[in-house]
């Protein structure tokens, strides 16, 4: 089948971009402002998330064993715990080790320890979790599951800490998604307006193309590429501005922030997603306008 490929559409799109230079420049500027906000919140999001992850790593669960378990039973329990999804590390803590740790924590108050007489602490397994696991509900389920397990005396974990972490995760996720949707809709709106202006300025040509047998794809192709390119340019510009701001921050501020949890720039994959995602939003904006115009 004969026809023109993506290079023709790209050349036509570039011609269109040049023809409506001022309007397109304004659109790129507006998109980059919207994407700048997205980028700023992404930086905040990723940095807070990394902090939350670090806190999550520190979250532990203790599975206390009943007295008199055989080595075989202990091994069985160890492997069952290790197999649980989200569990990163399982460490056996014998009652002697636990007591030693306890004694170390109560240094200076030896009288209290002496008062205890025989070591009352049981053997236990200490669990650490994967970054994303500490959902309070998942931890609660895991605790419930192993509480009733043969050979297990009790399960304890920092319930309050887990709930705070889980809340933070939710706030970040839902807040981030809402903001992204809101700004995504604005990008679609900006692009659809910009493409609409391009469509009106070339209305005569489009009408003529319809009369001389142009298919819908042939007419809309360049406009969709135009919308995609505009949004990608805007997004790339936003990333550039963010990078410029990030690297021009005074070293004192960077040092101050790195004392907390380290202020990192967006990972390259997120930058790529931002530019490609912006392009997709541009494509949607272009489609909205072209469809309305051609109908």
């Amino acid at each position, binding site marked *: 089948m004969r026809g023109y490929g993506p290079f023709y559409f790209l050349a036509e799109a570039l011609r269109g971009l040049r023809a409506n230079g001022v309007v397109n420049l304004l659109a790129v500027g507006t998109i980059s402002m919207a994407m700048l906000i997205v980028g700023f919140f992404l930086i905040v999001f990723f940095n807070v998330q990394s902090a939350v992850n670090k806190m999550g790593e520190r979250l532990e669960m203790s599975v206390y064993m009943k007295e008199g378990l055989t080595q075989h039973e202990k091994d069985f329990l160890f492997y069952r715990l290790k197999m649980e999804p989200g569990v990163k590390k399982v460490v056996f803590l014998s009652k002697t080790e636990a007591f030693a740790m306890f004694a170390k924590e109560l240094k200076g108050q030896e009288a209290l320890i002496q008062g205890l007489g025989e070591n009352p602490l049981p053997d236990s397994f200490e669990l650490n979790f994967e970054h994303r696991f500490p959902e309070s509900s998942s931890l609660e389920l895991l605790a419930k599951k192993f509480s009733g397990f043969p050979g297990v005396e009790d399960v304890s974990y920092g319930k309050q800490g887990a709930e705070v972490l889980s809340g933070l995760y939710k706030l970040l996720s839902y807040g981030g998604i809402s903001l992204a949707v809101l700004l995504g809709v604005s990008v679609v709106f900006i692009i659809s307006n910009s493409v609409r202006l391009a469509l009106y300025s070339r209305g005569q040509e489009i009408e003529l*193309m319809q*009369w001389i047998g142009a298919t819908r794809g*042939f007419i809309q192709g360049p406009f969709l590429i135009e919308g995609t390119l505009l949004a990608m340019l805007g997004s790339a510009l936003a990333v550039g501005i963010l990078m410029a701001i990030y690297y021009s921050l005074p070293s004192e501020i960077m040092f101050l922030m790195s004392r907390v949890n380290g202020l990192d720039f967006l990972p390259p994959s997120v930058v790529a997603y931002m530019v490609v995602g912006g392009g997709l939003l541009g494509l949607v904006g272009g489609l909205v306008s072209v469809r309305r115009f051609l109908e």
Partner: protein
Amino acid sequence: MIQLYRVTKYYEGVPALNDVSFIVNKGEFVFVTGPSGAGKTTLLKIIFCVEQADEGQIIIQGINTFRLKSSSIPYLRRNMGFVFQDYKLLPQKSIFENIALALKVVGTPYGDIERRAYQVLKKVGMHDKRHLVPPKLSGGEQQKVAVARALVNEPQMLLADEPTGNLDPESAREVFRLFRDINMKGTTVLVATHDWETVNKMRRRIITMERGRITDDGTQRASDVHLRVSPRTEEGTDGSRMNEGEP
């Protein structure tokens, strides 16, 4: 080639076409005449699938347009050239680019575009002005370019809506001569016009319309029938000599 059966089209309840039926065979040259508002333009728009009829059946090149999906309309139009009263040339593009656009639209390979555009412009005598933009040309020249654009994809059918409405008599005659030549090479031509003088001189089939209805369909009006042995020669409105059967 074109078959219309009892076609009716309403605009806000008022019939622009009313029970219109006719057949145009392959290779025919047909004039559609009538005063303004007779329904000539609506008729052409319906044939060209710009408008849809409210009643009746339309068969173009064996295709029932009622059953045609909107995505198939461009492919049907590629077999029909259309010439407009206002030329519809893109003013910012050169004559060559205007013709090239029609070739690109149908997916002509890049290597063929220049040659084919040149050939068709030569056919209408506009090849020397191919680098100019339309506003630099006279009305007659612009219409010739528009005819070239309509012909460049070698359509089986040419439709023209008042193609000489904005032209001086000599330019109009040249455009009609082009139509006659195209028709002689086998293209079906359907021209909507109220240029009675040319219509009568060309002695082709005339469909006369009034208030959306066909009032007459024949080679010429009864009042124009004369018995003659040899073609009559007479003077045109601008003083030039014209032969009967020619524009």
